[in-house]
């Protein structure tokens, strides 16, 4: 048993922390206020090879592991959760399906530009009538000679406005139900493909959230990603990895909550002493620190399991639920510790709450992840 990070993992974490605190954190408030997408920051992240961090060098990646990637997600989210989600969705949802299921030609054509950061990765699973129940996908892909013809729509899809192509799920065999779903790579400039980014969100204002509309969109046969009718199994595997990274995001936001609340509690004097001296406050901070440490240890374990190629479905669901709910609580406590100032936009903690809440919803709600855990421990035999 060894809990030490390797030298490379540690250096990656430290460099990303320095970069994120130096170049991203000072911008976070403005990004939240204006909702402007920080393309220049993404460019800098690409220059550091972050956009292909956990993928082999032959695909333009940096050749690091999933642990390193999750550490990077934590540090970026600690500075700016919007940028953290952009990054997480790019790697875990955008790159990963192509890396896991793509042919060599598809990896050359699609994974390489993603890893180089030339465009952002996006994955379109959710539909207006198929959220938690992703098996109820209504978008269809019908074979027509050498082509697939796609019709339908997707909602809440991260990064698509900045993508050159999006991986989507579509029904290829209605009779097979969820066993009749396949994945497709769809170029965003294909005729009939419309992307709309008009949502007004509670938080994560600097993350691009879109609706996708497919009106007789034709893609060539070779754009099928992975095996036909295996799409459901494939996206479940993609989501396993994504959930670990969402947990790392949650730890990053919670750490930012602790950083802000601890600093504030040490400075703020009421009743003649810093409020950090009051047990009601110090115990909140102690709980926050404890929960962060537990969630971090667990996402590292889950990421390590994934790096070892071991099953990780249960652990990923566990840490996703624990870390995301923990982050929301940490944000609420951080606001409480700030008193009236915590309710004001002048301090970052109200933003942390608005950003953290998504993590209990995206890539499987808390309820769905509890279902996964309950199934894994044998409740529904």
């Amino acid at each position: 048993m060894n809990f030490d990070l390797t030298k490379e993992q540690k250096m990656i974490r430290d460099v990303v922390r320095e970069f994120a605190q130096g170049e991203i954190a000072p911008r976070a408030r403005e990004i939240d206020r204006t909702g402007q997408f920080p393309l220049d920051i993404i460019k800098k992240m690409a220059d550091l090879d972050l956009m292909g961090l956990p993928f082999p060098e032959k695909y333009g990646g940096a050749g690091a592991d999933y642990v390193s990637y999750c550490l990077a997600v934590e540090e970026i989210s600690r500075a700016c959760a919007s940028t953290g989600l952009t990054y997480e969705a790019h790697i875990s949802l955008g790159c990963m399906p192509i890396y896991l299921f793509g042919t060599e030609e598809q990896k050359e054509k699609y994974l390489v530009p993603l890893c180089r950061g030339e465009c952002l990765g996006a994955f379109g699973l959710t539909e207006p009538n198929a959220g938690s129940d992703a098996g109820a996908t209504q978008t269809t892909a019908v074979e027509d000679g050498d082509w697939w013809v796609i019709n339908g729509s997707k909602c809440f899809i991260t990064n698509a406005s900045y993508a050159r192509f999006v991986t989507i799920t579509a029904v290829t065999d209605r009779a097979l139900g969820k066993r009749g779903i396949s994945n497709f790579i769809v170029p965003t400039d294909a005729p009939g493909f419309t992307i709309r980014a008009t949502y007004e969100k509670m938080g994560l204002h600097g993350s691009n959230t879109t609706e996708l509309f497919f009106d007789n969109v034709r893609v060539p046969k070779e754009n099928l990603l992975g095996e036909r009718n295996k799409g459901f199994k494939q996206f479940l595997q993609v989501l396993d990895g994504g959930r670990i990274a969402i947990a790392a995001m949650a730890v990053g936001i919670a750490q930012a909550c602790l950083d802000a609340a601890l600093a504030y509690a040490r400075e703020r004097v009421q009743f003649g002493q810093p409020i950090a001296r009051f047990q009601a406050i110090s115990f909140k901070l102690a709980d926050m620190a404890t929960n962060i440490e537990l969630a971090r240890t667990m996402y590292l374990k889950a990421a390590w399991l994934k790096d070892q190629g071991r099953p990780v479905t249960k652990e990923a669901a566990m840490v996703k639920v624990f870390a995301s709910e923990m982050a929301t609580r940490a944000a609420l406590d951080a606001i409480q510790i700030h008193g009236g100032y915590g309710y004001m936009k002048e301090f970052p903690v109200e933003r942390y709450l608005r950003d953290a809440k998504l993590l209990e919803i995206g890539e499987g709600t808390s309820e769905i992840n509890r279902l996964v855990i309950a199934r894994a421990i044998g409740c529904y035999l």
Partner: protein
Amino acid sequence: MKIVVLPKQTFDTEAKITLDAAGKINREGVNLIMNPYDEFAVEEALRLKEKHGGEVTVVSFGGPKVPDILRQALAMGADKAVHVGDEGLEEIDEHTTATILAKLLRDLEYDLILAGWRAIDDGSAQVAGRVAEILGLPMVNMVIKLDIAEGKAVASREIEGGYEVVEVPLPAVITAQKGLNEPRYPTMKGIMQAKKKPMQKLTIADLGLGGEEVAPKVRARRYYLPSPRSQGKIITGEPAEAAAELVRLLREEAKVV
């Protein structure tokens, strides 16, 4: 062009300094970093390599954690590293360090030696100068701009009230001042590739050194922490009266006017 950089591992700028039971500076649990002025030196070496071609070697003398800063330099783009361990040396001073580095440098090929102008921990600003002296090399201190052409270095350095531009033949020792450049972040690929680059570990004995040669010439007799800053005083009252009170306190209590 062959460039050797001499980075030192120092305490983090935010480290809290404490003394141990023996009255020495406590190193336990302190975050260690590459001396910031040495980061400028590494960056300049990499930029010169990118411009003129060649090879950058980083060399450091010190304890078992020194490979961390050497790895950082390799991740930034340096080609190889040498770590001379401090095993068996109880006390050292600038003479010790310079003697060891100069001895090692005699076995290396170089056109240019770069270092930070001072380390942020002991702040003595001596090691690079001593190395230049031992090796009989010209040296330019506190450089904020450096150009290399035709076997010469043209360096701008800060002087009181302005700048001085000097020219020296290579090989030479140049020390970096803040403003020389903006050090890069190591890239992720750089970090992953660093582990494949050569890092040599040597002892002082490997260099044929020991005993009196490396014994310090200066010994620290005592370390002590500055006395804690006492609470500030707020003088209330009308401005004119408050000013008078301030002058009285400065004269009678602080005895500074």
